[in-house]
């Protein structure tokens, strides 16, 4: 089993699309990845620093509204309306970022990059808590994942750990070291949330060799980070814990809390053998099979360790391993990927996407994604979206996909393709006989397209 362009475009991309050439070789896929991130330039999404002013404005409006509310009078209504309008503006931005994210996937030549961005974004899951942070959750992959997706794991880990949305999501901003004055006075206390999730989810994994004592010590070491001015994380030594802390058998820092000690610990944790194994297993599970080939996992583990967490080496190991090219389609496309790959197969234009009204965006995307079990940017917890096929192909999940497949394609400004051709192109020549039969036998064009997009061959990769 080795490179096959049809497998390459589907398993490691968003599938075929009119006018998009499938990858020619592993080399070409890796070269494209190593090149510039053109999709990010073509369909921009803001970073946290860019929207910090908006958040500040909403905070100010909220303060003004509360003041007015307590005072009474005309200003209650005006401040309330101003705040509402600002939230509307943020929602428009959030919708635009969603469309940009989906457009990147639909049109990418370098589709593997988009898949990797989704993978790492889910690995370092954040959920925007409250209306304020929910509106800017899209900044996280822009700031944390895209700049490092072809770089070092340790750098992505550091960017994730210090991103304002993460600091807010996992309560790090409220955590004070146990020995800090703030904690001693009883004003603040230690919060282990982020420390625990970094060890359990982002690095060593739940089966990793850490204990509750490590979590506590690491939480004490992390204490001090908070979203700061200008939208960048800040480190407040007076919230930190007078050290040293012993995390995973190594001592960090001294009496005076310093940010450098935290970064040193993150480097070491990123390099831990359990981290290598955890990442390797998760990576193979996401791209190849819910029950990945042990030899593939071993190869990825070795690659991660030997390259000191160089992600390009990890990708190269995956794409050069025979298990990656097994013909059997073991993975189910998650709902976002399902919709993106259908738009790509249909050749829906970027302009059409951009021209959709809010109502249509809800009808065609946000509503269906929720029904399919993957509401946009709203996973259930810090462990992100589940991988297993049975989680996604539930009665409701599947019915929602079918409902979308038969009705949505007619809502875009494209002429529905001839099903007899579409069954070949959309499924890259891998259609089963039953699907080919259905494509011919369906009474109407839109039903045929719906059945093709609902077929297991299209929903699997």
């Amino acid at each position, binding site marked *: 089993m080795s490179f096959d362009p049809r497998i390459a475009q589907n398993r490691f991309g968003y599938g075929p699309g009119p006018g998009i050439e499938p990858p020619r070789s592993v080399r070409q896929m890796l070269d494209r990845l190593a090149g510039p991130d053109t999709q990010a330039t073509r369909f921009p999404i803001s970073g946290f620093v860019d929207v910090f002013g908006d958040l500040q404005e909403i905070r100010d409006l909220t303060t003004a509204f509360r003041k007015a509310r307590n005072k009474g009078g005309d200003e209650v209504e005006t401040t309330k309306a101003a705040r509402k309008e600002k939230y509307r503006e943020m929602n428009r931005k959030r919708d635009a970022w969603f469309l940009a994210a989906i457009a990147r996937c639909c049109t990418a030549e370098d589709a593997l990059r988009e898949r990797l961005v989704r993978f790492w974004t889910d690995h370092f899951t954040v959920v925007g808590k409250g209306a304020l942070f929910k509106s800017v959750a899209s900044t996280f992959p822009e700031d944390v994942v895209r700049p490092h997706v072809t770089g070092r794991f340790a750098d992505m880990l550091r960017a994730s750990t210090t991103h304002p949305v993460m600091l807010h999501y996992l309560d790090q901003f409220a955590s004070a070291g146990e020995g800090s004055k703030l904690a001693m006075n009883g004003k603040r206390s230690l919060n282990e949330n982020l420390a625990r999730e970094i060890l359990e989810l982002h690095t060593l994994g739940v089966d990793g060799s850490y204990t509750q004592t490590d979590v506590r010590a690491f939480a004490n070491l992390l204490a001090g980070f908070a979203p700061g001015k200008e939208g960048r994380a800040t480190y407040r030594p007076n919230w930190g814990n007078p050290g040293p802390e012993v995390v995973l058998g190594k001592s960090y820092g001294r009496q005076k809390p310093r940010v450098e000690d935290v970064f040193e610990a993150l480097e070491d944790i990123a390099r831990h053998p359990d981290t290598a194994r955890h990442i390797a297993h998760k990576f193979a599970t996401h791209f190849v099979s819910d029950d990945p080939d042990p030899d593939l996992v071993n190869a990825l583990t070795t690659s991660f360790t030997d390259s000191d967490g160089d992600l390009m080496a990890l990708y190269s190991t995956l794409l050069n391993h025979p298990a990656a090219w097994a013909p059997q389609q073991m993975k189910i496309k998650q709902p976002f990927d399902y919709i993106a790959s259908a738009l790509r197969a249909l050749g829906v234009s970027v302009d059409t996407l951009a021209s959709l009204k809010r109502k249509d965006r809800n009808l065609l995307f946000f509503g269906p994604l929720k029904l399919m079990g993957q509401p946009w940017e709203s996973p259930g917890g810090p462990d992100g979206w589940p991988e*297993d096929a049975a989680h996604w192909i539930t*009665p409701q999940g599947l019915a929602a996909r079918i*409902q979308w497949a*038969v009705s949505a394609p007619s809502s875009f400004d494209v002429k529905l393709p001839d099903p007899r051709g579409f069954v070949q192109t959309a499924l890259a020549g891998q259609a089963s006989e*039953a699907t080919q039969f259905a494509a011919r036998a*369906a009474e109407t064009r839109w039903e045929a397209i719906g059945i093709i997009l609902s077929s297991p061959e299209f929903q699997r990769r």
Partner: protein
Amino acid sequence: MTKHNTLPRRSFLKNAGVLGCSLAASPLVTPVSLAATPGDHRLVVIVLRGGMDGLDLVRPVGDPLFAGLRPNLSSADPKLPLTDFHALHPAADKLHDLWTAGELAFGQAVSTPYRNKRSHFDGQDILEAGVGAGGAIRDGWLNRLVQTMPDTQLRTALAVGREDLLILSGGAATSGWSPDVTLPLSEASRLLMARVYDGDPLFSAALGEAMDLTDVLRSGLQPNADDVPDDPDDIMSDAMMMAKEHRGTRGIASFTAEMLRQDTRIASFSIGGWDTHVAQTLNFKRALSTLQDAIITLKAELGPIWAKTTVLAMTEFGRTVRQNGSKGTDHGTGGAVIMAGGAVRGRKIYGDWPGLAEEDLYNRRDLMPTADIRLYAAAAMRGLFHATPSEIENTVFPDLDLSPGLPSFIA
């Protein structure tokens, strides 16, 4: 039911011998004994999102401080008395009928272990996960309850509505369905679809179950299964119309009742709209009307099964004791839990009253909780499904202190 169900079922059985590894995990294809049902009782948990103001619903009009703290939110309708001390919200007339019938009770001054932060997001997670403050949010307590029950099937526990309910997620296989999913396919397309899925047991089984579930709704609405539109725009608008018909809470309650009449024993859905910071008189009434409709719909459509049914309506936290400057209330702590149903020992307010004097309040602002809300959930699972104390303490609510005793509200 109609004939198109049979085909995917048959194909699924045919393929059941050659399950791929990805399928082993699918609850849909795990054989279950058809006869087994875990008892006759039904439990419906309604999650009230936004922080339902227990003091507005069950008004402690007998407390001399109440009217002063809530000038706009403390009137009592003499037609809706509860006890010598409590009156019901003036718009809760339908709930009052249940009270009179002995099918409604309340637990007062309850809360989850969540304290001080008062975030909806965290508060709801803690309510649904059923854990202590700071506990890991991984799965829901209703799911863990199912794990302790013998002889459960996929449809024993059911989440209804569009959202993924944390309260029902976890290791035990449960169902989920939103009645606004309509599967708008002609008979011919259904057959084609079944054929396309024939070789893939995961898809085949899910489609079969989806067709069964949509038929629960179709049977009442579409006289003829072939009577489906022949244009995608019509499909879309038809689907939307059916969706509309079923989207509301009444549709959700109606579907829930239908499933409870069949094999489902535990169901959950949520009702939002309780975050009444502003103009509470108006906003609370709106949410209350939805809740009343849901409960009344359940009662009407469950028929004789209502006698075996318990509805628990729970919220993430109560609200401030004092009304705020905009005639609303802010996030608080102690609140109320609603118990309704024929299986409930009604006409009673359970739990201790903490008082409204400033020194009796939590943080001098909120109603002081006098009981962990999980004790009410524990009492329901004990009374309805015979959950043992050790199952409750070890599996369902691992850090719950059972020593205060369970309120005995199950008849």
